[in-house]
């Protein structure tokens, strides 16, 4: 039995949960940054108006 087979369960559980956590961080970051950018864009256009 090689290393991968011996630790497969740990590799899959840790790998999958890390990937899901990372995805949630990316989604949160995109939402946060986009909200900030949209507000700046709105303010800029109000000022111009």
């Amino acid at each position, binding site marked *: 039995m090689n290393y*991968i*087979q011996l630790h*497969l*369960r740990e*590799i*899959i*559980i840790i*790998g*999958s949960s890390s*990937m*899901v956590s*990372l*995805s*949630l961080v*990316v*989604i949160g970051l*995109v*939402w946060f*940054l*986009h*909200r900030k*950018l*949209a507000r*700046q*864009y*709105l303010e800029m*256009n*109000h000022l*111009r*108006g």
Partner: protein
Amino acid sequence: MISQEWLRHFSIAFILLPFAVGMVRFKYLKEEYKLLLAYLTASVLVETWGEVTFFMGSKGNMIGYNIYTILEVTLLGLLYYQFIKTQLFRQIVLISIVVFDLLATYRLIADPHAYDDLSWSLSNALLIVYVLLFFYDLLKQPEIAVLTRYPMFWISSGILIFFSGTIFVFLFGKYIISDMDAMGDLWDMIKWLNILYNILLAVGLYQKKAVITLRPQ
């Protein structure tokens, strides 16, 4: 029927949720989202076929899932091709779809009934990249006022969570299948993530307006 099998059928049934929402809202959806509906239709068909063969006791339904993987990358890839605005990213998406389709078709013809771990995990990796390119592109579009009312935000979130969460299971799928008694429960992760994925797709398709745009004064 054991609980793992119940979970399998329950998870598969969830595909009907975004499909039904998409059908109800069909005439209000923008043209681009119809590619997502084509993908959902393919999902419903392949899962129905998988269920029929399962209840008939046949184990030779892997060919359907291998074809489905090619359709999945093609249809979702084309969906992103339409929504991504940066020319370089669009080219990356298009070229990767063509290369993947050729590779996956070659492997499908070589052994149609085998569990194709390479194609399955590569399709996950590609879809993760498409979502990341789309998100990067989205940050250059501040005119979309409310991101949570933008369908592609929900759809992309679902795709990112599902395909990143399942990539390890598909990558080591051959090991899991060879020892289902000891590791079969790892496959349950796909079923739970599939439920969440379909809920997020349905939320995306339910959004009333395709895009809420800020109006400059």
